[in-house]
């Protein structure tokens, strides 16, 4: 890892297109400003890692049979379409 020291309002360039600026330093929190092309996604690392972990878990589990879960979902959908009890649809 490259470690650089920057003061407030100083910047780092990554390649030609990405700029990171120290906007504010308050206690232990550093506010960073980022300029990058739209096609490059920027995330807080913990969120990125959580998504990646779930992707890997999804890939590992994709061979499983989901028909029982599918049944439960269809059952709930069908229930939502039923007439509620006691509706006055006038059945003699």
């Amino acid at each position: 890892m490259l470690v650089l020291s920057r003061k407030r309002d100083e910047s780092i360039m990554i390649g030609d297109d990405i700029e990171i600026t120290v906007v504010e330093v308050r206690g232990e929190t550093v506010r960073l400003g980022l300029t990058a092309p739209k096609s490059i996604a920027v995330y807080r690392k913990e969120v990125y890692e959580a998504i990646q972990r779930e992707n890997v878990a999804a890939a590992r589990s994709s061979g499983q049979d989901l028909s029982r879960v599918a049944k439960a979902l269809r059952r709930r959908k069908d229930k939502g379409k039923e007439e509620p009890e006691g509706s006055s649809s006038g059945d003699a």
Partner: protein
Amino acid sequence: MTKVYHTLRFGKLEIREEDVIVIPEGLLGFAQCRRYILLEDPSQAPFQWLQSLDNTDLSFALVDPLVIKPDYQIQVPKEEVECLGIDDPQKARVFVMVVVPKDLSEVTANLRGPIVVNPENRRARQVVLMDDRYPTRYAFLKEIQKEEQAEPKA
């Protein structure tokens, strides 16, 4: 023109190029895989599968988030929508990934990292939502069971 792929989950597939979905940046953790096909298995509807064409062992179970969470509403950042060439956000198709643990009742969906597809050019992207309301592990089957238990008995 079709091309044949031999996949782990679905066996032999004949895929038309115009059906291929491209994820230019790949999925998080799977940056090398960019070409996919969306497959259905009627016996497992509403679940669908995103099958990789770059790694035929790789597939993901997906579901329409509105099926498992009818009030799911996301704000996709404008830049992400533009990247996909989507002019009308209503036209975008959104899927979430399903994780199936050994205990089927613990099945979860990742509501925080939906896959957004532009059906017109078949480009897609995994969007990481800023909104921390939505968990990466939403136990939707448990929620359904809770609902069913709360319902008054007939």
